[in-house]
């Protein structure tokens, strides 16, 4: 019962956050001074554009945003269309459907981020727990290199890896999702090609995630290492591996919250990494859309990222309530 209440109250918070995000996504480009649509069209068509293009863009806007209506009914129209999965038509790749473009890019991003996040979380936490327990030189080495990996923004590490392992030492392809002349299909040749392109961006994300998690776990485990149960186990002569296992399990709970709070940063950083490698995912789609002032694509991508981050946060919160009984207790009592 209490678990259900925990989930429901979280659901309420996320519904509020989602409403705020949806409103931001819609109103922010419209609330600023000047007629936003004229500004958009002016920016989109600055310089060379045929009158045909101008007319097309203008009609797209009028149709999509229902400009003859007031702001509130425009918002309702927007929500209605969004719920049907209709994100409008791309400006730069007219008449491509925005929903289709996102559908094409999404699998690449998922294939890149999901394994990197999960593996990075596991390896990073293990390394952090071991570092806190061993102390000394190993600890200092892990701490400083993790700090370096998290301090340097994702794309900086990506730039260094790309230059080091693809240009200076040509071990990997220099970017893209597959080789020139190849095209996506379900064959072994293409799979091998795609994996060799996938590896470098994956490695770059993995290293950053390991660093971030190791730092968090280490600072948690520092408190655990001094706990009585560790001293007790040591006096027994228990194997280090066993003790580290206990420390890992105790330090893991706060780390799950850490994962929830970090998801936004992770997704954002990973999208920027794609740009460095010209990887054909959501990040590169967003980058191209910004360069071409393709507003329907930009807004669809921001909405998608907002939804993914909120859903991931919610799932972690539910998971946390499931595995830690103290959380459920706290929901009932004082904060």
């Amino acid at each position: 019962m209490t678990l259900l209440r925990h989930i429901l109250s979280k659901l309420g918070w996320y519904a509020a956050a989602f409403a705020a995000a949806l409103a931001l996504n819609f109103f922010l480009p419209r609330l600023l001074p000047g007629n936003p649509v004229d500004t958009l069209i002016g920016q989109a068509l600055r310089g060379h554009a045929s009158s045909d293009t101008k007319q097309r863009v203008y009609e797209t806007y009028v149709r999509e945003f229902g400009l003859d209506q007031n702001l509130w009914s425009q918002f309702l129209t927007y929500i209605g269309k969004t719920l049907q999965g209709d994100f409008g038509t791309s400006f730069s790749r007219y008449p491509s459907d925005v929903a289709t473009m996102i559908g094409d890019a999404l699998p690449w991003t998922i294939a890149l981020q999901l394994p990197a996040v999960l593996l990075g979380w596991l390896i990073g936490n293990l390394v952090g727990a071991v570092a806190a327990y061993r102390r000394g030189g190993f600890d200092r080495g892990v701490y400083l290199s993790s700090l370096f990996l998290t301090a340097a923004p994702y794309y900086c590490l990506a730039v260094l890896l790309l230059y080091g392992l693809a240009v200076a030492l040509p071990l990997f392809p220099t970017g893209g999702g597959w080789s020139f002349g190849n095209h996506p299909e379900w064959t072994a040749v293409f799979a091998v090609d795609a994996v060799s392109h996938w590896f470098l961006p994956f490695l770059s994300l993995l290293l950053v995630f390991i660093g971030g998690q190791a730092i968090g776990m280490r600072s948690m485990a520092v408190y655990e290492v001094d706990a009585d149960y560790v001293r007790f186990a040591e006096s027994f002569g228990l194997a280090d591996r066993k003790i580290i296992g206990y420390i890992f399990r105790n330090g893991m709970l706060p780390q799950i919250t850490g994962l929830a709070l970090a998801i936004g940063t992770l997704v954002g950083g990973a999208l920027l990494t794609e740009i460095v490698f010209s990887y054909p995912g959501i990040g590169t789609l967003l980058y191209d859309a910004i360069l071409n002032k393709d507003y329907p694509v930009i807004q669809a991508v921001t909405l998608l990222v907002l939804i993914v981050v909120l859903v991931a946060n919610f799932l972690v919160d539910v998971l946390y309530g499931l595995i830690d009984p103290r959380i459920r207790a706290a929901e009932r009592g004082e904060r």
Partner: protein
Amino acid sequence: MKALKALPARFHAAAAVFLLIAAAGVIGPLVATAGPGDLLGGPFLPPGPDFLLGTDHLGRSVGVQLVHGIRTSLYIGLLAGVAGTVLGVLIGTLAGYRGGLVDEILMGLTNIMITVPAIIVLLLLSISLDTRSVTVMGICIGAVSWPWTARAVRSQIASLRQREHVDIARLSGSRTWRIIAVELLPYMMSYIVMAFVIQLYGAILAEAALSLLGLGPAGTASLGVMLHWAIAWESIRGGQWWVFLTPTVFITAITFSLLLVQSSLDTVFNPRLRDRKAAR
């Protein structure tokens, strides 16, 4: 002074690196004979006696752009860092000290702002703005970065206000702002300093990320803008290492040194992390 000596060696090293880079950003633009946008030589000239750091795809000096870029990035970082810290401390203090409904509302807002990724809000703001001057960018970044500070300050204030000296001040008729300024904030100075360093770090990263996406400040160089052009003109694949390596190295050096400063301050202020040497 004594506290400064207690800081680990890596604090001094990191602080020195940061101050050196900042000095380059302050002095460099003053002594440079050319502007960051001036076309001075052929495209992609490697480093040599004429151009210490070579030229970019248009023939602009990378070295001149670098010092201007550092200045822009630090200016945006400082502006956003101050704005974010002040907003966070104000909102956190108000929520923690008042409690009740004010607390509920402010913390609800804070939790929503924390859940919605800041980079997305900044992206939406940036595409909506007609002019992206450095000042506007700094204010925008500051306006979305306060929630972390607010949440932490609130929980500290909520526990501090239950201390006896606060009760005494309240009973002796001190005004609310006096209690906050004299009885509460001094206990949090160490925390606020650390929060500011983190805000500065986050703001410099946010500027770089936005600029990398092509939403950087208009009409000037910044470290992120330099990296954006380096990637857009394929200098990595072309092997022109001086073009992309310069902004990459300096962004990393600035953020790494700031994080080191913050973490060594933490070891001094946090007694549990203090002096963990040779326990085993």
